[in-house]
């Protein structure tokens, strides 16, 4: 007969069949942040698809619909939505390129994976800031 395993030194929380509501209590390492943001940004872009296609359509039909599109995009609330979508696009793009590189078994070791996860934020967030300044007319 096998002997029972030694008692754990501390009472660590144990997660099985993880529920979405438990995620908020995790201490997320950097690669996990990139991962969940990749999913959230992807879902947001999917939900925004009709809005984006509609804007694209308006921008191409005629001069007057182009103006209408510009009018719609000039409201502060729409600008905030657009900024969120720009962040989502940039994060999804940069994190996606990271995943393509990881698929080639490059940068998979934990220290490198932490580093290149941090690099995703270090690239996507400043780009989002530039887009925000442009969107709200700083330059």
């Amino acid at each position, binding site marked *: 007969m096998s002997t029972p395993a030694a008692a754990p030194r501390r009472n660590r929380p144990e997660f099985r069949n993880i529920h979405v509501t438990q995620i908020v209590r995790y201490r997320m390492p950097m690669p996990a942040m990139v991962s969940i943001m990749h999913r959230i940004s992807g*879902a947001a872009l999917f939900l925004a698809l009709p809005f984006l*296609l509609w804007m694209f359509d308006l921008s191409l*039909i005629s001069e007057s619909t*182009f103006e209408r599109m510009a009018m719609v995009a000039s409201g502060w609330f729409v600008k905030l939505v657009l900024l969120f979508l720009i962040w989502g696009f940039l994060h999804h793009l940069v994190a996606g390129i990271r*995943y*393509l590189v990881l698929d080639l078994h490059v940068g998979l070791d934990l220290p490198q994976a932490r580093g290149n996860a941090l690099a995703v934020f270090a690239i996507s967030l400043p780009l989002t800031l530039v887009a925000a300044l442009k969107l709200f007319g700083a330059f």
Partner: protein
Amino acid sequence: MAFAPPPAGIGTKRLVVGAHYGVGNFLLQRLTALVLVVFFALLGARLLLAGPLDYVAWASLFVPMWMKVLTLVALLALLYHAWIGVKDIWLDYVKPVWARLTLQTLTALWLLACAVWSVQILWRV
């Protein structure tokens, strides 16, 4: 009916039944991602070089046939990429079969509609 032992290299942990185990979608998710990276890099570079665009300059980008085809291919890649990703989200979080199938069906129909709409948008220019 006896099953033959799995051939060498297949492994002993799974039953070889001819299912694809998602390998096709795994590869297509990455292939479509590459298409999108290239397309948005080219479009982004073109727009940054051009500076602010008025309607005529913007719309004339999409007039040549090759640009319509390129953009449509990129949009179809985007829609298929979205299909794989959104389906994964439903599979991860929605457990009741009826809800999962309903959401998957609606997602597929919606993305299909977006594909048709994309053709209309591009070929109206």
